[in-house]
């Protein structure tokens, strides 16, 4: 893994769990509006952030993601009213827990992006990519076969 870090060609792989009703549409908008953002994200569309089992996040890290982004509707705008608010509690605990055991907090990122915020989506992806680039490839927890 260390040589990867020196490898100029290395680009982080970021798995983004996006809520169908807002961030996914936001990403779509970014595309339609031709807003440039790093090609580092692999989007997984979920019905709601409340649907995300924290296991998905841990699993993504184990399966080779360098970072995980979770993005849903802004508080108060959830299609299912409060899915994002209960998800928020889980994520707060998960992020703390992962960093407590020694996984860099910048590798797990949570945010809100609405359907009309294509430009915000691009900035989020840029921000996460930059932060993960500083950390280098994920070598903790990553399965090596």
């Amino acid at each position: 893994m260390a040589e990867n870090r020196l490898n100029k060609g290395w680009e982080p792989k970021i798995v983004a769990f996006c809520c169908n009703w807002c961030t996914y549409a936001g990403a779509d908008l970014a595309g339609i509006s031709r807003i440039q953002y790093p090609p580092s994200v692999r989007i997984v569309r979920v019905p709601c952030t409340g649907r995300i089992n924290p296991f998905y996040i841990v699993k993504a890290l184990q399966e080779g993601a360098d970072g995980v982004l979770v993005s849903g509707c802004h508080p108060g705008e959830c299609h299912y009213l409060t899915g994002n608010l209960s998800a928020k509690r889980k994520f707060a605990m998960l992020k703390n827990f992962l960093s407590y055991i020694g996984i860099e907090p910048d590798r797990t990122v949570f945010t809100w992006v609405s359907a009309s915020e294509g430009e915000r989506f691009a900035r989020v992806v840029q921000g996460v990519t930059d932060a993960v680039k500083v950390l280098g490839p994920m070598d903790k927890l990553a399965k090596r076969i």
Partner: protein
Amino acid sequence: MESIEKKLREEAKRLLAEKKVDVIVGYEKGTLPLCSTPCFISNSEDTDRLVWDFFCRQNLAKYVHDLLFQHKESQRNVKPEEKTKKVIGVVARGCTSRSLIIHLQERQYHRDDVVIIGVPCTGYVAQEKIADRAGGEEIREGRVEGDKVVVKTVSGVKDIPLRDVIADNCLTCRFNNPVISDIMTATDAQPMSPDQEYVQVDEFGKRPLEERWAYFTGEMSRCIRCYACRNVCPSCYCKVCFVEQSQPRWVGIGIDETDTQVFQIMRMFHMAGRCVDCGACVEVCPMGVDLRRFLKKLDKDGFELFNHRVGAVLDEPPPLATFRDTDKDEFIFEPE
């Protein structure tokens, strides 16, 4: 403790004789010295087997869930008019009562399916600590006398101060008296001293990231995935555990170290807002994995972020099943 034991046996006898319960889940003397073991008593003649001492380690709420669950399964194909009810009597100290509350909050059974016989608790003796103090020698006999444990090994008789061998979770226990009970066997015990509860968590959290990761992986590398920690935990009751699920297979079954790490991360994370720090998982772990160091972090965050004390109030929802508008959101990422 003798008087608690006496009262416990009397109450158990009465409950069984009056058919208020079908079975009493309690502790009886184990086959090894300094061990008490869970027992199931359904005949009022047998209640003298019940003990209450410093060697009652396991959290009996586990068995309440198991028995009620098995009963429910057995009733599945029974005609409605022939369905029966089963009531479990359980000997419950503080942490056991909190585990029962969690089951009730999670709607696993009804409050009237259990009769809680409360015992005030002064902690239990940790197996690992006593083995250490006995110099790793086989303990032939042992008993508690006042504030010391007297153990007999090949090399002679040793006196060990009781306080030195009480389990870590008990030393800082905040709820050593049952939180709910139907019958109390004695008045409340002296409180333990919970001020030091999070000292270890705070200290660990301040260490450098890489050191924490090294400690975590070091501990997990000892785990042989016997799943005893899961099997003994009252909060681990899923019919099909994620580690055994094959579609999808969440955790590989090979020897890859990351599978063990992922198993532990997820099992522990399932304890968020649900671990009562009974220490049962630590007691049963054959490899002495320091699980509590990590579990306690979730407990601390649950309290600090959501002001929730696990299993403390029956009609409070579990913290991850609810939210407040005032929940903190500094961790939410804001792009430049």
